[in-house]
């Protein structure tokens, strides 16, 4: 933090009375000829139908999408025929789910909205991925894409390589995380990757950008995720099972003087995340990390307080990560197995966490799950992911 910067960390108000409910997923497809508007529309329809609401009852809307252009959230109001009094467009990729939850929570607390629908989704045409890469940001256009056009794979390869050099992580450690997530995904009907992954297959996969190999990468696909955020009494009146929001942190462009990213913005605010929730890291029953690459998962295990910086590899070696393991992680298989439906990836972990905590998981339940940490990470603008956020949510 810059010298003389004011300490703004104190005085944050609690999220008492805020709940999240009605987790929905529009089943993913590898490619889709439909538009992002179509996918987001399916998610909103699923939310209203299952909550027994008319579209007009949705008075808050938060939207995240990469492939919505030339539209933003405002265009969707007319497209969908909704008239919210609170509207947000959150283009922060993998962090947008946590950011949406936080903003929506404050909106319902303050009475600016009663029911906020948080939706995130993208389509995937055969050429969308390349187009998204080349136009991702001005810094990417000027200083990343002309260097081999390897996209996020190449950028995260450099982060992974540096992390391995510094902290002694091995490909086998990343394999353990990926294989466990695959096991968790085997019960998810629409997962892109439904075949069990073995260590041999992981190690022998083709190199994408050394040391990143095929199974370290997510499969781009089309899909959408959504949930509702409201006050507890509203959820009760809708007879929807819900989870409580205990704490949320959000931080952008942290640690700018680190030469290569070895930590994310979580590390700045992590003490507050736990203290606000009144919990310690060993108290949560499972964790949903943002898993665009396994090195980022490992980084989150450190930055979210489960072990100290540099201990990630040892932590991975001493735990098991399937839903019946010692540290259930990414309980539906995460993006590495289910697929990355663009910005929906930012909501995937949160939606699955709500499912687990209300006792309605799509796959294997985590036994007696009471609380969890959900984390988001996104926007590799130049050389590092800029946005990070995390939330602790608990069974009501």
């Amino acid at each position, binding site marked *: 933090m810059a010298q003389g910067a004011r300490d703004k960390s104190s005085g944050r108000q609690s999220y008492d009375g805020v709940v999240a409910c009605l987790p929905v997923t529009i089943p993913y497809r590898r490619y889709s000829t439909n538009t992002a508007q179509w996918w987001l529309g399916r998610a909103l329809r699923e939310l209203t139908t299952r909550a027994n609401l008319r579209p007009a009852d949705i008075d808050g809307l938060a939207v995240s999408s990469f492939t919505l252009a030339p539209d933003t959230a405002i265009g969707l109001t007319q497209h969908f025929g909704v008239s919210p009094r609170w509207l947000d467009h959150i283009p922060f990729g993998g962090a947008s789910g946590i950011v949406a939850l936080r903003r929506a929570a404050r909106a319902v607390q303050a009475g600016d909205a009663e029911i906020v629908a948080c939706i995130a989704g993208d389509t995937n045409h055969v050429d969308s*991925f*390349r187009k998204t*890469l*080349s136009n991702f940001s*001005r*810094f990417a*256009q*000027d*200083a*990343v*894409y*002309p*260097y*081999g*056009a*390897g*996209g996020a*794979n*190449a*950028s995260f*390869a*450099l*982060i992974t*390589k*540096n992390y391995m*050099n510094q902290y002694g992580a091995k490909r086998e450690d990343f394999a353990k995380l990926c294989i466990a997530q695959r096991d968790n995904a085997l019960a998810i009907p629409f997962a892109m990757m439904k075949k069990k992954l073995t260590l041999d297959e992981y190690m022998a996969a*083709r*190199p*994408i*950008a*050394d*040391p*990143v190999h095929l199974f370290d990468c997510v499969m781009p696909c089309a899909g959408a995720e959504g949930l509702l955020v409201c006050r507890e009494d509203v959820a009760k009146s809708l007879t929807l099972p819900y989870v409580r929001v205990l704490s949320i942190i959000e931080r952008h462009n942290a640690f*700018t003087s680190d*030469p*290569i990213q070895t930590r994310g913005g979580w590390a700045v605010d992590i003490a507050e995340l736990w203290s606000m929730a009144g919990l310690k890291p060993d108290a949560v029953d499972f964790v949903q990390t943002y898993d665009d690459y396994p090195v980022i998962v490992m980084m989150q295990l450190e930055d979210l307080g489960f072990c100290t910086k540099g201990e990630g590899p040892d932590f991975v070696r001493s735990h098991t990560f399937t839903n019946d393991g010692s540290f259930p992680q990414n309980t539906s298989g995460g993006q590495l197995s289910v697929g990355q439906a663009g910005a929906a990836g930012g909501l995937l972990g949160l939606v699955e966490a709500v499912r687990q905590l209300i006792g309605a998981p799509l796959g294997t339940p985590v036994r007696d799950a009471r609380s969890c940490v959900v984390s988001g990470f996104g926007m590799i603008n*130049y*050389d590092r992911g800029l946005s990070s956020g995390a939330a602790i949510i608990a069974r009501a």
Partner: protein
Amino acid sequence: MSEPLQRPKRKNPLQRTKHPLSPPGVRSRTAHGLTAAAAEGRFALQVCEDCKTVIYPPRDCCPSCLSARLPFRDVERGGVLVAETAVQVSADPYFRERTPWRVGTVKLDAGPLIVAHLHADALEGYRVRLDLKLDKSGSAVVMALPERDTPNMADDPHLREMTCDPKFRRVLITDGRTPVGQAMAKAFAEAGAAIVFVGIADPWKPVPGFEALRKIGPVEIVPLDLTDSESVSEQAEQNGARIDIIVNTAEHVRSGGIVDRHGLTTVREQIDIRYLGLVRLAQAFGPVLRARGADGANAAAAFVNLVSVHALMNWPAYGSYSAAEAACLSAAQCMRTELRPGGIKVMNVFFGPLETEWFQTVPPPKLAPSALARAVVRGLQQGLEDVFVGDIAEDIRARLAVNPKALERELAS
């Protein structure tokens, strides 16, 4: 250590010539500050005028103090290669043909982090020096080179993508009659060119220095008259498909201005030899040059335009000469855009008065033809786009940058 480049074998005529592709060339306007530096072989980054922070990637606002005063300045090019990767899967067709392609994160001593292309001898954990290069799209990229020169380093295939090294390439010197043309032939032979075609117009006229020229190893004398469209197209039909670098050495230096000159004879000759000669060359050789931009290790690479520095500001003592040179400079700017799809660089080499008979009355400093020739070879080896050779050329460029109007007055005397 880089593998030495092997002399390319004779091309199999049944083999399809690869269509040239360009790497992504779109940049923000600010980022083209790097392109300007790369074109001249300088390593310049933005340096905040208020807080002196060295900035990368190019920005419109200082990330330390929010200043908008961010000029590009030459900075130290040393740093450490912190992490590297080899891109094996690329979204871009140009890179797909060239994987694995190494890139890495360099921590520059001057401050910023730069994701750079890597020379084969730039190794993770070691010190490197950075260079700005124009890639085949014509936009600037940063390349990390080993800290000190290594054997055969110019032969690194990824560096060679950014340069126009004459080694094993076939060159056409368009006019071998002049001292510059002959010095050029010698310099290219020394730089390892495979064939140096040297054009001679009206071969029945005696050519001073012809015997020495003929004896230079790779030199092949060919008939070429730039004032004759037929002669130029004939030469292009004969050898166009095996010429990788063209150096236009045609000149027509005559003193005299515009008002104080009687009739059009000299002016017309100047325009015919210099401007129309360039257009004839461009039309006859340009399309095949552009089509052969990805034709193996000795792919077509460059068109070199030797142009008087007085193209940039008229020198009234040689007023009509300066005007013809200015026409050539303007044409070269057009040719740059037209040849870029083939990855062909148009290199403008600016020079002042030469140590030749046509500048007999001009006082020193004057530029030796051999020095001009060496500068051309060096510019191609570095992959430059604009080269200023000698004291006069450097002086005029510096004065022009500060105050063009003052220069106009100064050149009157």
